[in-house]
């Protein structure tokens, strides 16, 4: 019999409850999920003809194409956002730069964050036209605002001693940033970047509705044609993909914490039980006293007969 450890059991129960809950809500509200016609979104499109082999036919489906495009948009937006937000985060940190630098920099970061990515998507669709480019630009701007804030908060929270030593040495701001601040806060910066990717995948599904690419484009399309059963199928696919990315993200982030030195997880650790079974919990009454050689419970019972 397969033994499942407690953590995995809890994870499986949580995921099952979530999926069932989502399914039940959809079923109660519209009965759409039971309409298997909606699942045609994972069948290959009739045009262009699918050249993939029999087992990979699903890669020609709108659900796959849309989801992959959304993930690509999220990857690029996170990458460009990280590149742009890091200098902004450094310039906004009050422990590195004077107020006349931090205030304008923070204003720019706040401005990027002030509008949700959906509104940025509308703006960029107007500027550069329909398609994923608008999505990438919109989410890059929002990433700068969001990630920039998280970064300068992490930098301001770092230990002041390395900065003091570096400043006393006479290192330039660029050297302090590159050789002291970034390595010292690297764990936070990487964890935040992974979180932002996860966030961008979620918001990437929405921006397609205004024509900025990704799976949202297909959702919008089928909404217009009143094919709600297909929309429901897309929503369920998004839910599962986001859940999967969340889990991988939690796992990846666990590598970048101070505790990871001692409790570094394995790749299989997120989904599978550990190879070595945990030691069985022995009831204190069954433990053997090393001095007397009798069971602790028996000893207690013998010494306190009234209790039993």
């Amino acid at each position, binding site marked *: 019999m397969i033994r499942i450890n407690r953590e995995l059991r809890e994870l499986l129960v949580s995921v099952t409850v979530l999926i069932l809950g989502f399914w039940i809500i959809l079923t109660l509200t519209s009965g759409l999920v039971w309409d298997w016609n909606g699942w045609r979104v994972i069948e290959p499109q009739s045009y262009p003809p699918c050249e993939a082999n029999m087992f990979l036919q699903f890669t020609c489906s709108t659900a796959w194409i849309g989801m992959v495009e959304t993930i690509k948009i999220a990857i690029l937006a996170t990458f460009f956002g990280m590149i742009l937000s890091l200098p902004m985060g450094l310039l906004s940190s009050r422990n590195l730069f004077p107020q006349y630098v931090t205030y304008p920099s923070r204003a720019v970061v706040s401005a990027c964050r002030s509008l949700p990515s959906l509104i940025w998507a509308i703006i960029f669709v107007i500027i550069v036209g329909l398609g994923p480019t608008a999505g990438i630009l919109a989410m890059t701007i929002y990433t700068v605002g969001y990630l920039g804030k998280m970064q300068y908060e992490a930098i301001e929270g770092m230990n002041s*001693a*390395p*900065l*003091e030593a*570096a400043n*006393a*040495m006479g290192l330039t701001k660029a050297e302090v940033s590159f*050789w*002291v601040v970034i*390595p010292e806060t690297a764990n936070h910066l990487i964890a935040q970047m992974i979180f932002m990717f996860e966030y961008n995948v979620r918001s990437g599904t929405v921006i397609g509705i205004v024509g900025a690419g990704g799976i949202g484009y297909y959702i919008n399309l089928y909404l217009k044609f009143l094919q709600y059963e297909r929309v429901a199928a897309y929503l369920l696919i998004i839910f599962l993909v986001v859940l999967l990315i969340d889990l991988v993200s939690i796992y990846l982030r666990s590598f970048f914490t101070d505790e990871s030195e001692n409790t570094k997880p394995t790749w299989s650790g997120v989904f599978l039980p550990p190879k070595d079974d945990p030691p069985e919990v022995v009831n204190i009454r069954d433990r053997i006293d090393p001095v007397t050689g009798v069971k602790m419970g028996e000893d207690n019972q013998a010494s306190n007969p009234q209790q039993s």
Partner: protein
Amino acid sequence: MTKHEKRNHVPKHVSEVVRIRNLEVGFQKQPLLSIESLIVNSGEVLAITGPSGIGKTSLLKTIAGLLTPLSGLVQVCEATSPQKPPRGTIGYIPQKLGLVRHSSVWANVMLGSRAGNTKSHSREQSNNAILAMGLEEKRNEPIKRLSGGQQRRVAIARTLAQRPKLILADEFLSELDEETSDRVVEAVMQYVSSSGAAMVLVEHDISRAREISDRLLVIDDGRLNPFITDTSIMEVRS
């Protein structure tokens, strides 16, 4: 023979490295420490002692240019505060060491070396400093995996690799065992005597401070006084 006597030679050209006049150090306009006049010459090791919270670290930070004095003048290598002395002049070993925890020993030592040398010399200086501190086996280890004593040796190696004209050290021998402490003191004193650098150190252990310093000053009642006897320190502490 004391460790101080082990120093090979005194630099030929003695010059002022630190000059302090009418200095008031404190926080929120409340003076903590007042110094009328203090000069530290090249090749000199000055030790400062006194009870906790009396302003020793604040004085070091003020000399390092990290704290703005309430009033008065601080001059390091002819650069008057708030003007900064040339790059790499000051090597500061904070009480908390100030190491980059996620970087390796080598990266941390190179940081000091970068501040003080041209690129061609920096690798050699770093290697020498790591050897002097006996850290050659830990060279690629991240700081967070080292013990407290090893981390302290890395901080000292970083300062030695920098080759500063002024070393400011805050309790730099704490957490070190007797043998390692001797080795560290010997390396630092060797550097001070050969380079003509000055050193200002804060030390709680009076016997050790007397052993390694040329001058020992005590902070008493917000002022710097020359050390007289151990009894006087006990009185100050009580």
